[in-house]
């Protein structure tokens, strides 16, 4: 009925002429690109087109990168004043801004996320992270860790595929500002923007070895984690892998930060501004195809407004434009990999078999590539796997509550504690709920907002430490009383 009222959008594709993708890439070690030995393909998940061949780093490459990072740390970076280090970070921020469009196009091609998001969120925030941390480099004595905080040395950093460039920025910017050198491994399926970032380091004339980028899969990551020449490990990814890393470094003196999974509750109280809440729910779970550790994947609705919210939510979901990530109109892009698509399908199948009621937005999915329609499950209980396990896809589980305390109890009934959302127009209730929720980031009457000045990170099994702000910087400094 209302179908007729919706706008028709003509395709508005972003040009990919802006980027040059090499047929084959090596590693960036000691300021130079060095050829890899083995390679694996990286594909565009929206088309399954092979974009390039990515090198798989083994022991020799990891050793080489750690050696280069150590040399740069002891001969150059640790001796340089914070003022000068900061200038390099400012340069990097500026070059990223200059080449923003190129980064955005490359990110969308390699990751499958809509160009609107890579252009408006990932890339500008990545540049902002460098700009913010640049200013810290000569002010470390004011970071709250005493008058002489020290860098750890060489940081090994392993990042996920959901926000490839942004996660690189979250890791590299504070590490360099604090005076560490880094060995960074992008995710197996999304290495291209990290390799473009290596070019930015060259253009910024960053001293050789301060940033080393080696590509590979989990085996490369394990080599980094277990390398005796690394002083600090920073990982963003699944809780499962995070625990393996925590165990691996337990007997060592390596410092660790972990930014892991989540199953965020998004609570809508009966006094919420419903239309705004619906937008927030959509942003909470369908932003970046739901490939977000802090995604609001559990919608917790007050019973008295549940029907109204669900009706409006379904109507809104039916208007989500799913398809070509390079189209500037697209809201929901491709699932990043076949493997991830299978995981989403498997967990949804459990939702069906455990008694949840599935509803997917009517939309035409492209024939090639990896796609999943925006989906909600109603009638979900706290025992269902889709209410407990991180789905990392565009799938929302809906639960209901009667009293505010019940909402809090349900929200906190998870081993995760990364983020949570609150929708209510009553200030005292918002503040009450934000106190009760056991999560590191609370979005009240908003969702999925990020900023370099704003600490991000989880309680409980969502990880160790924070990223962003003074709290995030401290993860890259020694000076606190605990070991």
């Amino acid at each position, binding site marked *: 009925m209302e179908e007729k009222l919706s706008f028709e959008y003509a395709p508005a594709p972003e040009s990919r002429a802006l980027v040059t993708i090499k047929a084959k890439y090596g590693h960036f070690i000691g300021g130079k690109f060095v050829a890899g030995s083995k390679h694996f393909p990286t594909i565009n998940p929206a088309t399954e087109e092979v974009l390039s061949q990515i090198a798989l780093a083994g022991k020799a490459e990891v050793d080489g990168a750690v050696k280069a990072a150590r040399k740069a740390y002891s001969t150059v970076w640790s001796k340089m004043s914070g003022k000068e280090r900061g200038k390099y970070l400012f340069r990097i921020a500026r070059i990223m801004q200059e080449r923003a469009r190129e980064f955005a196009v490359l990110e969308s091609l390699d990751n499958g996320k809509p160009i609107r998001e890579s252009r408006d969120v990932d890339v500008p925030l990545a540049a902002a992270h460098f700009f913010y941390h640049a200013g810290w480099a000569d002010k470390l004595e004011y970071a709250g860790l005493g008058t002489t905080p020290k860098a750890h040395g060489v940081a090994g950093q392993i990042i996920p595929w959901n926000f490839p460039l942004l996660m690189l920025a979250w890791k590299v910017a504070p590490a360099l500002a604090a005076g560490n050198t880094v060995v960074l491994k992008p995710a197996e399926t999304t290495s291209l923007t990290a390799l473009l970032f290596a070019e930015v380091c060259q253009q910024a004339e960053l001293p050789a070895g301060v940033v080393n980028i080696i590509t590979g899969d989990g085996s490369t990551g394990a080599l980094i984690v277990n390398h005796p020449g690394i002083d600090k490990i920073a990982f963003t990814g699944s809780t499962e892998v995070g625990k393996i890393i*925590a165990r691996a470094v337990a007997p060592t003196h390596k410092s660790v930060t972990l930014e*892991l999974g989540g199953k965020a509750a998004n609570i809508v109280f009966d006094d919420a501004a419903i239309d705004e809440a619906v937008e927030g729910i959509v942003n909470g779970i369908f932003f970046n195809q739901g490939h977000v550790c802090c995604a609001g994947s559990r919608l917790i609705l007050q019973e008295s407004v549940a029907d109204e919210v669900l009706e409006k939510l379904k109507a809104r979901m039916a208007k989500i434009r799913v398809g070509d990530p390079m189209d500037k109109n697209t809201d929901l892009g491709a699932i990043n990999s076949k493997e991830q698509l299978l995981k989403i399908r498997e967990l949804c199948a459990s939702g069906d078999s455990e008694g949840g009621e599935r509803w997917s937005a009517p939309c035409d999915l492209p024939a090639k590539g990896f796609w999943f329609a925006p989906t909600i499950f109603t009638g979900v209980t706290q025992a269902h796997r889709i209410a407990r396990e991180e789905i990392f896809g565009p799938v929302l589980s809906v639960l209901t509550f009667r009293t505010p305390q019940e909402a809090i109890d349900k929200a906190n009934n998870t081993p995760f504690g990364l983020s949570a959302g609150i929708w209510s127009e009553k200030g005292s209730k918002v503040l009450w709920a934000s106190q009760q929720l056991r999560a*590191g980031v609370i979005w009240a009457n908003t969702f999925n907002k990020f900023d370099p000045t704003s600490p991000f990170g989880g309680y409980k099994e969502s990880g160790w430490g924070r990223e962003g702000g003074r*709290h995030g910087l401290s993860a890259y400094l020694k000076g606190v009383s605990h070991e």
Partner: protein
Amino acid sequence: MSNRIDVKKTYKLFINGAFPRTESGRTYEVKNAKGLFIANPCLASRKDLKDAVVAARAAQLGWSKATAYNKGQILYRIAEMLEGRRAQFVDEIVSVTGVTKAKAEKEVTASVDRLVWYAGWTDKISSLSGALNPVAGPYYNFTIPESMGVIAAVAPESPSLLGLIDVIAPIIVGGNTVVVLASTKAPLSAMSFAEVIATSDVPAGVINILTGKKDEIAPWMASHMDIDGLDISGLGSKRHAEIRSAGTENLKRIYSFKSADPGRILAFMENKTVWHPIGL
């Protein structure tokens, strides 16, 4: 001396504000520096630890909600009660460890003063670590430290009273509740300290004290899924790797400290960041 027979104290555990014996029925012998028998404290079991964690979990929400002013006054009250019983603590430390009276007095004085120092932190720690974050958009955004939950701790062997206070105080200042294992060789001052706590308006379950073997109890603490953090300052460094490894099952925050400072309070607090739009 007179012919009067001393009334000796039975040393028990301190769980949920009460003084139960260990459910295991196990005890061990504590001797003084000259090798003479002093007491049979409890050899706490895994079940005692579980009971203590249940009590600590039940008390945690209430303690974290208590105002900073209230928490500060309660910590100060502990110092007042300890001050009033200085002589008893000095005697116990002398009898168990064989140190001079002057040295024992010094430890008790430092313990009282340390409690007073921590009492003053309850209403200042968030201004030290909190932040108003100037995000690039129309949002009010702040970060505050809040309690982590239930924290377990292994107190150092010595000094048995000051060491115990050094692990307990920073944990509860942050709004956490604690299950602490006292010095194995010198547990008497810990159990007498429980009597001080019991008369200091500390809500039941906020502080729970066990006596027993570190090698038994520390791994149980590390693997317990309802303990959020663990202070292993009192555990020999050779065992740290094993304990850290066991703690990864629920990604427990595990730390060891060398000094008393605000970082010790913040280590067992979580930073929460809250966003809210600004607008009409």
